[in-house]
């Protein structure tokens, strides 16, 4: 089971809960090694995330879904220090909210994808650092299913 942990929501007792993506099509699922999914234009070759059926670059309408890997480098970053208002929707409360990192991660295909980051202090974040994908819980929905999304974290040194 793939479980991240950047959201501090006390999910440890629920490790056996069924998980589903918050939104379909953002990453490969189920997959032991999930990758971001995007689209590639069959006319000009440009990538897009999330996947779309038209191309922002050449205006064409012939695209295909492609896997975009699970690693990249940090292009820029910030830290979200206060709990956002709606439409932000997690299981957090103003009391349990923890600041989270946000950044653009440059993938191997060159596309820069905006993502939550596990690291949430300036000392942990540097432009150019290697990053890797992880899947993190967002909230438990009305059916008791844990909804998950993509995030990045500093690449683990093997």
């Amino acid at each position, binding site marked *: 089971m793939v479980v991240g942990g950047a959201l501090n929501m006390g999910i440890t007792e629920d490790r056996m809960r069924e998980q589903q993506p918050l*939104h379909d099509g953002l990453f490969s699922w189920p997959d032991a090694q999930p990758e971001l999914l995007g689209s590639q234009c069959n006319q000009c070759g440009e990538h897009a995330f999330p996947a779309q059926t038209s191309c*922002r*670059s050449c205006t064409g309408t012939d695209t295909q879904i492609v896997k975009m890997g699970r690693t990249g480098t940090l292009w*820029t970053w*910030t830290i979200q*220090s206060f709990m956002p208002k709606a439409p932000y929707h*997690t299981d957090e409360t103003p009391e349990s909210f923890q600041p989270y990192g946000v950044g653009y991660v440059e993938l191997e295909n060159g596309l820069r994808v905006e993502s939550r980051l596990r690291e949430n202090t300036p000392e942990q974040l540097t432009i150019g650092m290697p990053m890797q994908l992880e899947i993190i819980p967002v909230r438990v929905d009305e059916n008791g299913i844990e909804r998950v*999304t993509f995030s990045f974290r500093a690449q683990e040194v093997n």
Partner: protein
Amino acid sequence: MDVAIVGVGLHPFGRSPALSGLEQGANAARAAMADAGVDFKAMQFAFGGSQDGGNADSLVNLLGLTGLQFTNIWNGCATGGSSLNAAYSAIKSGQYDVGLVVGFDKHPRGAFNPQPKDWGLDDWYGETGLMLTTQFFAMKIQRYMHDHGISNDTLIRVAEKAFRNGSITPTAWRQAALSWEEIANAPMVSEPLSKYMFCSPAEGGCALVVCRADMAHKFGGKPVILNTAVVRSRHYGSFEVFSPAQAPEMAQSPTVTASSAAFELAGIGPEDVGVAQLQDTEVGAEIMHMAENGFCAHGDQEQWLADGVTEITGRLPVNTDGGCLANGEPVGASGLRQVYEICLQLRGDAGARQVPNAPKVGYTHVYGAPGISGVNILSI
């Protein structure tokens, strides 16, 4: 046919708890018409916009049901720029002789909370905490500081200047100058930007009376010529707010394309501008917009701010009324406030904040989500 601005009016930005957004817009419209020495019956058309204050054309209930053409404009933070652009075209085309441009707003307290669906995005983007304009501006200046050697000191200097200018602007929301220490030690909001480095959503209204320049003498006051009013949206590859991804190859921002088009149409260059208003929803925006509008090279801002070039007494005064930082941002009115301030400066009516040496050319720039810029060049 040249276009002139013959009346300017403001309902001061900040909080007006007793007044609706529309009432603040009507106050601004009446002030602009009084400045021009005309009444609403003389207005042949109006363009207006508001995000949270109601439909602009409802203003006719307050101003009078005269049957004029009243068109609502909505272009995010660039609404004022787009409204003035529409009025400029209406007069340039010969369709009308005189009309009103008005913007107003009344936002709830706290940060904006845009809805993903309104911007062509799915709910996950907002639900997982990525849809905050504050994050985008923080990430854009973070990368910019990395690429162009801009220091945190320069961020502080921009905020210091804004609140100092606000303290001598009677209509500004923020009337207190802030010390270096107060700005430097304020709570962090979105790294590297702290509390006093962001403007806040606010309330207020602003209006302009525009006419054919050859009729300007019929109105009271000193006319200001609107040389160009240009609005541009983003190209593929520019780094914009509310973007789940960015293309590998960077393109110029819509500010660059709007600015260069405006200079070309006006037949002048950045060196001819004597006073400027640049969108400063946060300090990083003012810094980046100095270069994107062609006034300096990327990275020069570090020296410019240290040397006071953009102070009221400097070579190119920027945001002389304290900008968005000291006035807050009622979205529908904000772009027009910039034009209001430039008109006062060119007319010599700016009081304690008057730029010395009687500038002849002024410049305004507004930027909005999801990647749109409006530039106006004005002269006297």
